[in-house]
């Protein structure tokens, strides 16, 4: 076994090209669980936690985007200008594990693991983030919705590294909500992110833990976009109710030891409805 600690993306990519079976580790919060229980014995590990490009984020005001390095931790997303620009990501980050986990776990790791319950993933989907990947062949970008293929399956090619996520700074309202059975340190039983983009007059709803990967709700989105008063972000109760039904209908939950399919289906509808209600109250308050 070998552990490689590159300083740059190019070096990391060189190692991954030479040994495509290598495991990339950033915070270690997913990988080490598997290593500790003996399920995983990586032959080669590339630790990316000291690559400055991956550890930083930058705002591009002209493009109205923020690009977040894949090794930026949840704790770093929770505070300051980053949290102000992508508030739903900050809200999602706050629900991840414990302070210890948030200090180590990264956005890139969340995406690479691609668990159906990954807390950052509904946000990335709803805000329309793009992922940048680096390999020996160069760099490429794709929408996260295409990158997330299934349960713990992504479009990451052998030898490829997640470099960053570029997230639009949305003009409008966004929010994230997550249900777990405990008030802290809990894996999502169901989660939802709602983004109301005022300038484009579009609605995005993304759901976690109710399908093999993050699900969008196209019918619910277009229903709400039509029903919403875009100046007040208000919506008639009946239309909001219908929106919640459409969200529930878009889910494809299963029953497991954490909850039942019925509860998950019910819950995402309630969460989506409450998030829109929250948007309306925020608009009133503003």
């Amino acid at each position, binding site marked *: *076994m*070998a*552990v*490689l*600690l*590159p*300083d740059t993306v190019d*070096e990391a990519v060189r*190692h991954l090209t030479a040994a495509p079976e290598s495991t990339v*580790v950033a*915070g*270690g*919060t997913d*990988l*080490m*669980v598997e*290593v*500790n*229980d003996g399920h995983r*014995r*990586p032959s080669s*590990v590339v*630790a990316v*936690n000291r690559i400055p490009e991956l550890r930083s984020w930058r705002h591009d005001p002209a493009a109205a985007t923020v690009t977040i390095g894949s090794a930026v931790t949840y*704790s770093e997303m929770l505070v300051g200008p980053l949290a102000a620009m992508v508030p739903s990501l900050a809200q999602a980050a706050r629900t991840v*594990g*414990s*302070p*210890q*986990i948030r*200090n*180590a776990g990264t956005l890139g790791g969340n995406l690479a693991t691609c668990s159906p319950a990954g807390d950052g993933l509904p946000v990335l989907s709803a805000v329309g983030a793009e992922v940048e990947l680096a390999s020996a062949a160069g760099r490429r970008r794709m929408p996260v919705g295409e990158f997330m293929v299934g349960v713990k399956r992504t479009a990451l090619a052998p030898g490829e590294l997640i470099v960053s996520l570029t997230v639009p700074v949305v003009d409008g309202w966004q929010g994230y909500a997550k249900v777990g059975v405990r008030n*802290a*340190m809990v894996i999502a039983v169901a989660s939802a992110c709602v983004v109301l983009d005022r300038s484009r007059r579009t609605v995005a709803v993304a759901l976690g833990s109710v399908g093999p990967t993050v699900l969008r709700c196209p019918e619910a989105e277009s229903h709400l976009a039509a029903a919403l008063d875009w100046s007040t972000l208000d919506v008639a109760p009946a239309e909001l109710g219908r929106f919640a039904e459409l969200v529930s209908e878009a889910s494809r939950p299963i029953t497991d030891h954490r909850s039942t399919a019925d509860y998950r289906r019910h819950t995402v509808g309630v969460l989506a409805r409450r998030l829109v209600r929250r948007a309306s109250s925020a608009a009133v308050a503003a």
Partner: protein
Amino acid sequence: MTTTIGDGDHFSLHVNGIRCEVTDSWLGESLLDVLRDRLGLLGAKGACEQGECGSCSVMVDDVLVCSCLVMAASVVDQPIVTIEGIAPIDAPSDVQAAFVEAGAVQCGFCTPGLIVAAHDLLERLPRPSETQIREELAGNVCRCTGYGRIIEAVQQVAVRRAGGGS
């Protein structure tokens, strides 16, 4: 420059200000296992192997983490502080003293991790509200105390550090 650690290589960790050579370890080992089994630092405890209990909490590069989820070989060159490095044995820290006095210790298994986490909390938030204490320490599970005396201990330290009481 890539630092490469291969099979059979030694690597060194900087623990509590001391450079420690790690030999004979399997490179995938967690920092917790290396601290306990290779370096003989038994203060950090393992109780879940999944980052769900906080008993193994240590500081790496001034950041509070679960050492069970850190691959030891990935933190060479980074300063590590364990419970053994929090305060000298003959001069317990204010947090340590408050835990003992306030009845925050029962079986004590979660205690070393909590002491490290409480020190970190009070560094970042010198006057935490009760809710902040609860949120910031939520990664440290205690099965004996129900947390009440631990909150009391942290509050006592905050007050004393602010000069509000002996």
